[in-house]
């Protein structure tokens, strides 16, 4: 067997280095145009082969992937070197969804662009996994058109400590849905925008009916929720909310908050106009077993497969208990952001701008989007396409954005939501009074906020 001499080894090594040096250099991944034009003469024969770029995209797997793929068509046609790696994450609630994304990131999954909601922004920002989009927005030439077309509150909602982490795509807020048929059957006119809690109760009682005459109610006037989202409008319409603006102070010891919870509770157990326990909303509304409920723009899409047309129902502002019309409600928004671990932030930014373009957002009004939420762009949310797929008073949704409160979304939002549900579930099961539940929530939330602030300080 021939031995490799030192001289021969050096000859081979030198040749290998020389060959490697002659290989074409791959183009840089960045797609941002350089500040100055390069001075070298272009080589006509040289064919620029774009580098293959893979962008990891995290989406909520509550609808099939094909719905999401529909957003990328023209972007991929314009960027043939880009491929999207779809990363579905089960969406059973924003807290659990965010937990799974963070676990993916910690586990080393290559994620560039994520879709998430307002709830997740402070937590993900605090964990340092989202890129501050501010510097990108300052220099991007086409961003102003987008900013001008979006309600400032939606943009503001996706910031944390004055930094923009997501660009808004869609949003929802809770207004009162009512069945026109149920109104007609009860001989009631469409409710006025400035209706009161008393008016509402009257409507709910009139539309709670034992159709079969067997002593069991077949059709309920309303469905009463106890979640921070579903019962939130009762607090707002009573001139208060669950917590203060920066979520450092719970307001469950405010008599107005307790009164609002009590009102929602009494609709089930005292006034008997709302069912107890589980009662699928869409199915019962479609079947004529439910006259009113708190719904959002996304609810429209849920009603389509149940054969409920936009002429069959309408929406109204929430009834008031303050003596003034309530135009605001609880709202939330979702959007797209870039992860700090992105290997292609420039391309991810281009994708972000594509995802918030009119072309993609149009899916939200034509029923081809992954969700049925309202588009973030004003021109679409108040435009004719949205009107064609919405009930008569659809403009109330956008109008209410001016006055509402966002969902509870500090970094410890999951723990706060759990405290709310822990005690109100006991109240709703009649194992605790509303006052006791509110007092317990107040106490536990104060402790949780103190724990979080202490942890943040350390």
């Amino acid at each position, binding site marked *: *067997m*021939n031995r490799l001499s030192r001289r021969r080894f050096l000859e081979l090594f030198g040749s290998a280095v020389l060959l490697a040096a002659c290989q074409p250099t791959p183009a840089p991944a960045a797609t941002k145009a350089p500040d100055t034009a390069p001075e070298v003469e272009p080589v006509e024969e040289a064919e620029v082969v774009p580098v293959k770029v893979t962008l990891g995209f995290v989406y909520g797997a509550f609808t099939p992937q094909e719905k999401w793929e529909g957003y990328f068509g023209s972007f991929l046609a314009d960027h043939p070197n880009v491929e999207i790696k779809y990363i579905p994450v089960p969406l059973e609630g924003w*807290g*659990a969804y965010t*937990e*799974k994304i*963070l*676990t993916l990131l*910690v586990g080393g999954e290559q994620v560039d662009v994520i879709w998430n909601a307002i709830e997740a922004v402070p937590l993900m920002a605090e*964990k*340092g*996994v989202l890129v501050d989009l501010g510097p990108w927005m300052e220099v991007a030439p086409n961003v102003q058109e987008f900013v001008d077309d979006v309600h400032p509150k939606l943009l503001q909602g996706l910031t944390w400590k004055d930094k923009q982490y997501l660009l808004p795509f869609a949003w929802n807020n809770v207004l009162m849905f009512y069945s026109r048929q149920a109104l007609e059957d009860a001989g009631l006119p469409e409710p006025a925008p400035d209706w009161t809690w008393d008016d509402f109760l009257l409507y709910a009682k009139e539309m709670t009916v034992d159709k079969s005459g067997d002593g069991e109610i077949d059709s309920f006037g309303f469905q009463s929720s106890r979640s921070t989202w579903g019962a939130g409008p009762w607090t707002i319409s009573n001139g208060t909310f669950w917590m203060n603006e920066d979520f450092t102070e719970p307001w469950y010891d405010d008599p107005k908050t307790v009164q609002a919870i009590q009102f929602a509770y009494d609709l089930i157990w005292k006034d008997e106009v709302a*069912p*107890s*326990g*589980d*009662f*699928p909303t869409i199915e019962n509304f479609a079947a004529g077993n439910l006259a009113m409920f708190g719904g959002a723009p996304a609810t429209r899409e849920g009603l389509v497969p149940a054969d409920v047309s936009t002429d069959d129902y309408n929406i109204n502002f929430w009834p008031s208990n303050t003596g003034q019309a309530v135009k605001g409600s609880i709202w939330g928004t979702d959007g797209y952001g870039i992860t700090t671990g992105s290997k292609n932030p420039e391309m991810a930014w281009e994708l972000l701008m594509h995802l918030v373009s009119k072309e993609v957002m149009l899916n939200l009004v034509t029923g081809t989007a992954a969700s049925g939420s309202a588009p973030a762009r004003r021109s679409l949310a108040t435009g004719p396409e949205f009107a064609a797929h919405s009930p008569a008073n659809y403009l109330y949704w956008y109008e209410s954005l001016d006055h509402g409160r966002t969902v509870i979304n500090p970094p*410890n939002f*999951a*723990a706060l939501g*759990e405290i709310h*549900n*822990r*005690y109100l*579930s*006991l109240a*709703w*099961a009649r*194992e*605790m009074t509303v006052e006791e539940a509110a007092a317990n929530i107040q106490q536990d939330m104060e402790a949780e906020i103190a724990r979080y602030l202490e942890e943040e300080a350390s």
Partner: protein
Amino acid sequence: MPSVSGRVWKKPTMNPMVQEAVAGYLFVLPTVLSFLIFLAIPLVSGLGLAFVSWDFFSTPRFVGLNNFVALSRDRIFATTVRNTAVFAFSATALNVGLGMTIAIGINSIKRSWARSLLRSAYFVPFVVSGVVTALLFQFLLQESLGVVNYYLVRLGFGRVPWLTSSRWAMRSIIMLDVWRAVGFYVLIFLAGLQGIPAELYEAAEVDGAKRWAKVTRITLPLLTPTLFFSLIIALIGAFQVFDAVYVLTDGGPGDATRTIVMYLYRQAFGSYNMGYAAAIALVLFIIILFFTVIQFKMGDKWVFYR
């Protein structure tokens, strides 16, 4: 083999004993590696994590026994221990008790096709995913529109808040667990029953033993090793209950059905308190170890080995 240079290549020699030892080590290497990677290292890491404060993203900070001190003062954790104990002892008693009774019943059936049919029927729910069975029960036990309540109302009873009241929620979870797992224990006991020699029964019959006497004097004593095994694995599994509760009630109403593993999961992946979650895991390990040791100690007195 002669080389080009003319030197002769000699096969390296190795002491046959060393050679045998190397081969042996190579054979066990895959098992040892998987044990280390998937069991030993995570176990030791988990143990270490219980003494640090770590949120996944920052550097772990040693906090000594702080996690355990906090755990001792945590009233939700105390509730989860109580709930888990209620579930574990109830589900174990029902699964093992019913499993044994059903197995004895099936074993006494003469027709083999009927035995096979019943055995399969009881075992099928066990092979279905826990999440799927929980979703099925969620549908069946809905308060307003559930099938179970529909028939209860038709029979003149009131609606039962199966999943929304503290009184019923844990019972519903135990019911689901028994429906799903009892088939597994039926199978274990059937295997145990088939190991009992037929001549013992024949001898008893010659002596004039009745059916009940044969069950209590032959079947049950000779089933005690199977019973002991079933109790051990049922209790260990029950203390780790998670999926059924997570899907069916999410720990509610209030904390009425929150279990130790659910709380551990929330702490680890909801609040990102990895150290605290590891401390909970360690306490759970100690609880399971304690009851297993107790069972082994007590087993010496009642388990009959032929």
